[in-house]
C-alpha cells in the first residue's frame, strides 16, 4: 500500500515536471531550432546581412530579401502602437480614476470584450467596412489637408485604395487598444490610495494627481505594457492580412500597399513551390520569432520584474 502511494507520488511529480520542462523550455527552444534548420538553405544562400537588406522578393528568379517585409512589419506596428498608446492611457485613466465605482466593471468588461473578438473578424470587418470608408472619405480628406503640407504631404501621395499601410495600422491599433489599456489600467490601480490622497490633500486636481503621482509611480508598468503590446502586434497576422495587399515593396507613402512578415508567410507559405522559397519564408518566421520573443522577454523580465519588486510582489 505504502509503496504504491510512493510510486504514484514519483510518477505524478515526474510527469508534471516533464510537462513544465517541455512547455517552459523545450518547446520554445525546439521551435527556434526547427526554424533555424528549415531556413538553412536560405541562410546559406543569402547570409544574414544580405537577406535583411535585400529589397527584391522574386520567387521566379529565386532571389529573396526581407527588407520590405521587415520594414512593413515595423512600420505597421509602430503606427498602430503610436495611435493606441495615448488612447490606452486615456481609457485606463477613465476606468481607474473617473468612472463611477459601479460602472467600472462594465467598462472593463467592454474593453476586454473588444480584445476577445477574434483577429480574423477585425481583418474581415476592416476589409469590408473600414477600407471603403478610408478610400472614399478619410484618405482623400487627408490628401486635401495634410497632403498639402510640404514634406509631410509626401506621406499621403498615391491613389487612395483603402488597402494600404494606413488602414492596416489603424485596424491593428483598434485591436491592441484593449490589450494595452488593460495592462495600463491594472498598473494604475496598483498606486497606493495613500499617495493619491496626499496629492489631493495638497490641493492637486485630478489630472495633476494622475500626471504627478500615478504615472510616475507606474511608469515601468506602462512601458512594460507598451512593449508587451508591441510584441503582440508584431506577430499579429489575420487583422492585417486582408489590408496590406501583400506587395513586397518599401512603401513611399502611407497610402501604398505593403507587406509584413506575418502576411507574407500567411499568403505564400502553401504556395511556395521551391525549397529555397519555403526556406526564405522560414527565415522570415525566424526573424519574427527573434524579434517578438526578444521584445516580450525584455518586457517581462526587465520592466515588469522591476515593477514587481517595487510593489513587493513577484511577477505581474
Amino acid at each position, binding site marked *: 500500500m505504502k509503496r504504491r*502511494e510512493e510510486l*504514484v507520488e514519483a510518477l505524478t*511529480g515526474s*510527469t*508534471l*515536471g516533464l*510537462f*513544465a520542462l517541455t*512547455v*517552459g*523550455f523545450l*518547446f*520554445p527552444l*525546439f521551435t527556434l531550432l*526547427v*526554424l533555424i*534548420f528549415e531556413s538553412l538553405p536560405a541562410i546559406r544562400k543569402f547570409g544574414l546581412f544580405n537577406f535583411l537588406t535585400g529589397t527584391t522578393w522574386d520567387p521566379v528568379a529565386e532571389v529573396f530579401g526581407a527588407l520590405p517585409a521587415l520594414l512593413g512589419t515595423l512600420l505597421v506596428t509602430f503606427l498602430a502602437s503610436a495611435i493606441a498608446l495615448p*488612447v490606452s492611457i*486615456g*481609457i485606463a485613466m*477613465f*476606468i481607474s*480614476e*473617473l*468612472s463611477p465605482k459601479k460602472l467600472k466593471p462594465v467598462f472593463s468588461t*467592454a474593453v*476586454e*470584450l473588444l480584445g*476577445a*473578438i*477574434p*483577429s*480574423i*473578424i477585425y*481583418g*474581415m470587418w476592416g476589409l*469590408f467596412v473600414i477600407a471603403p470608408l478610408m478610400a472614399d472619405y478619410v484618405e482623400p480628406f487627408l490628401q486635401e489637408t495634410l497632403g498639402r503640407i510640404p514634406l509631410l504631404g509626401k506621406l499621403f501621395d498615391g491613389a487612395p485604395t483603402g488597402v494600404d499601410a494606413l488602414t492596416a495600422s489603424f485596424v491593428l491599433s483598434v485591436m491592441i*487598444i484593449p490589450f494595452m489599456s488593460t495592462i495600463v489600467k491594472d498598473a494604475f490601480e496598483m498606486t497606493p490610495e495613500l499617495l493619491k490622497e496626499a496629492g489631493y490633500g495638497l490641493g492637486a*486636481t*485630478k*489630472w495633476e494627481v*494622475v500626471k504627478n503621482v500615478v504615472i510616475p509611480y507606474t511608469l515601468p508598468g506602462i512601458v512594460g505594457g507598451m512593449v*508587451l503590446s508591441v510584441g503582440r502586434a508584431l*506577430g499579429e*497576422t*489575420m487583422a492585417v*492580412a*486582408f489590408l496590406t495587399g501583400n506587395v513586397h515593396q518599401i512603401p513611399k507613402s502611407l497610402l501604398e500597399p505593403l507587406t509584413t512578415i506575418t502576411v507574407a*508567410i*500567411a499568403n505564400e507559405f*502553401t504556395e511556395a513551390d521551391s525549397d529555397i522559397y519555403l526556406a526564405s519564408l*522560414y527565415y522570415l*518566421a525566424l526573424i*519574427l520569432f527573434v524579434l*517578438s*520573443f526578444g521584445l*516580450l*522577454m525584455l518586457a*517581462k523580465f526587465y520592466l515588469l520584474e522591476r515593477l514587481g519588486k517595487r510593489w513587493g510582489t513577484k*511577477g505581474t
Partner: protein
Amino acid sequence: MGNERHLRRVILRRKFVNILMLTLSTLTAMYGLVWLFWILGDILLNGFKFISLQLFLNDPTPPGIEGGGLRHAFVGHFIITSLGALIGVPIGIGTGIFFAEYGRHSRIVKGFRNVTDVLVSFPSIVVGTFVYALMVKPLGHFSAVSGSVSLALLMIPVIAITTDEILKLVPNSLREAGYALGAHRWQVIKDISISAAKRGILTGVILGIARISGETAPLLFTSFNNNFFSTDITKPMASLTVTIFQYAMGPYEEWHRQAWAASLILTFGTLFFFITAKAVVHGMRRSG
C-alpha cells in the same frame, strides 16, 4: 493685489487643464466603445441578414449555384478545436500545477514559468510553421490533427498561467493541514489544492478555449482547408476561420455573405466562452 490676480489666473489655468484632460480621457473611453459597438453591430446586422438553415445543413456548392452552406466548416471547426482542447487542457493544467505546487521556490522553474507567460503572446503563425515542419512536411499532406496540435500549443500557456496563478491563491495552511495528516504530495494536490481552486482552473480552461476557437493563422498550413465534408482527422479539414479568410478574400458576392454569417457565429461563440469564464470568476468571488 497683482499677486492675487496672478494666483487666480494660475488656479483657473489648472482647472481648465484638468477639465480638458478629463474630457479627453472620457472621449478615449467613448472611442473604445464606439469600435466595440461598431464591430459587433456590423457583424450582427450583416450576419443575421445572411444566416439561414441551409448554412448549417448544406455543404458548399460551386460558386454561382444557390443553396450552398458551410456544414463542413462548422463540423470541422468543432472537431479541430475539441481535439486541440483534448490535448491542450491536461498538459496546460499539469504544467500550471507543477509551477505552483512543486516549483515555487526554484529559480529554474520560475524561469520556465516566465517563459510560459511570454508564450501567451507568442505569434501564432510561427507555431503554425513549426507544426508544419514537424507534422505536415514528413507526412507529405495537411491533416486536421496537426491543426489541433498547433491549437493545443497555443492554449497550453494560457491554461498553465491561469492555473498557476489560481493555485497560488490557495492558502498554504490548508496544504500544511493535509501534510500534518500524513498525506502525500499528490494527495494534497488532488484533494486540497485542486478542489479549492476548481473554479479558477475551469476559468483558465474556458479562456484557453476562447483563445483557440478564433485562431486562423496556425491552421492555414496545418489543417489547411477542404471544400468537402470530412471527419477524417488525418486529412485536410475545413475550419470556420480559414473558410472566412478564403471566402472574404474571394471574388463572389455569395461567398462574402456566407463569410458574414460565419463571422456572426464565430464571434458570438468566442464571446460566449469569454463571458462564461467571466461569470465563473464572478460566482467564485461571490461564494468566497
